[in-house]
């Protein structure tokens, strides 16, 4: 009888340990899933911020590039080089 009780006790103990281990495994897996979701959401947030930066900066950068008051035309001029006349004359020699 004592042997039977001892057996049952050990089996219960073993079962409890197994359950605890299983619980721990599930707990760790759950944390892995949560971590993975967080990584993905951070990655998505990074993409979103990248696009947001584009939305905020690109139109303004382009607007500045083409604004007429930038005076992009250089002040100097090239030396006179009437290449077109030379070519046109060469053709009719």
């Amino acid at each position, binding site marked *: 009888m004592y042997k039977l009780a001892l057996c049952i006790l050990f089996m219960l103990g073993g079962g409890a340990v197994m359950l605890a281990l299983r619980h721990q495994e599930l707990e760790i897996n759950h944390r892995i899933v949560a971590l993975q979701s967080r990584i*993905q959401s951070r990655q998505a947030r990074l993409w979103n911020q990248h696009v947001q930066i584009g*939305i905020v900066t690109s139109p303004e950068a382009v607007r500045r590039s083409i604004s007429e008051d930038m005076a992009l035309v250089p002040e100097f001029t*090239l030396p006179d080089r009437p290449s077109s006349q030379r070519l046109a004359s060469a053709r009719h020699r």
Partner: protein
Amino acid sequence: MLLFRTGRALTILGVIIALLLALMVRVAYLQTCFRQQHLLSARRQTHTTIRVVARRGSIYDRNGHELAGTIQTAGVYIDPAFMLRHYQQNGRNLNQMDMDLARLATILDCRTDDLVRLISENAGERYIRVAEHMSDRVAEAVTALNLPGVGVEPMCARVYPMGSLAAHVLGTVGADGQGLEGVELRYHRELAGRDGWRRVEKDARRRPISIAADDFVLPQHGGHIMLTLDAAIQSIVEEELAEACRTFRAPRGEAVVINPHTGEVLALANWPTFHPQNLGDSTAEMRLNRSVVVPYEPGSAIKPFIMGPALAWNVTRPEELWPIPAITYVTPYGRRVTDVHFYGRLCTWDVLVKSSNIGMAMLSARMGNASLHRALRSFGFGQVTGIELPGEDEGRLNPLPRWTRYSTESVAQGYELMVTPVQLARAFSVFANGGRLIKPRIVLGRIDARGDLVPDPRSAGAASSCPQVIDEQTAALMRRIMADVVVRGTGTKARSPYWNFFGKTGTAHVSRGRAGYASDLFNSTFIAGAPLENPRVVIAMTIHEPDRRLGHYGGTVSAPAAGRILQRTLEYLQVPPSPPLSMPPPQVIAVLHNFRAELYQQPRASAE
């Protein structure tokens, strides 16, 4: 003291054996009959498959400005069957469900009645999406509610940071992420990527609790594409095109700016335009990329492509005089050809500068149909250019056997053939780059994982390998003749005080098919390149059906806008100003019509 009794022991043994037998029978049943269904059912109960969305790649202009990008948003879905069962089985009632749905409706900013009706009407369904493109804040609030059968899933939304800029080039993306038009359609496979998935074990409330390594397939995110477009030049072109269309009350217009040496399209615009994100605000007609898809008769803008080969093949010389008998000329077989003004005698140089239909008709008659057809074919008319945009039209250039004797004069004036603006820009580039027929391209390449540009093998090609249409000297001569178009010809309104332009105007009646030509509707075209000395850009611009009371000639409607585009583009590209334009050769000056030397010395005054 306990006594061992055989009868009782046998009874217990019998019960245990019976239980074991029952267990074995059950196991045998589960393992043999309907095994697959049972396995599937078990997996469904304990596992769920979650899609991991792949992000669609971005599209950039040549300077790295993002033209199209993807953001990740959240969608909210409901499993009505699960939800109803949960509330009915767990001792709660449907009133409790309605109260929970009211809380959900408040977060989603919708009506509770709509949600309740949606669920009752789809009681047997397992998936209904009730909200799309929610922010992170809303998604977190929905998750915090922790309602049974309500879930949040990631979804992607296409955004266009530059708004409607280059909308016709970029195209659109449908609700399912499928590219519908433009680059989005043509490069859908490269941009889309491939979704991943993960199969997770779930608890009784359907929350994911674990995942096995084998049950996780990573998504393959879409690649990024860099276009040849320059957002700044594109902005200039769209602005000026819209302004010109509004000024002349034209229903539509197109403009293409191209690098004549490489074929890179720097800007491609259509008006009216649309916002790719708000498809509901536009019609299919507005979304049509007419610069590539819809050909039209170019009118006098076709003349350089006849005169160029005529000079190259020594059919005529610039100083050759053509006797223009009157403002209307009747061909030997009775065809009437009319000029806008009467000039008397005109030299070949001035036939192009003044855009004389009669002079061109005489020149074309001398060339003959076969040479005319060969000349136009060599400039790529009647063939697709190969630009990487969907639905490109090849235009119309009838096969030579279908040409009649009337075709000679019709084609010389830009009728009986149809071209697209992209074809015009490509053909005009021949004069700008020394005689080569380049292939226009809109995609520079892909951006690899390290951020480096990988040229697109489909579009990259050496410019030197392009066919030589006319020799370099003839190309230079044509440029010089067409510089006079802007100084003393039909395109003076395009003239710049800083740079020398060369160009050609075109005005054509609009065809009404079998009903003939509309007498009061015109297509007004201007094609040009700049600067004359070393052309950096070529533009083809067409305004369709301007209000005739305000103007209808290409030189009046399109040339001023095209001139402004060229000038602003050269400013942006920081191209040094041109030297003063040289006079035509003396032998040509001797025969020019109404020649005034001061026009070459006062560009600003004459431009005004």
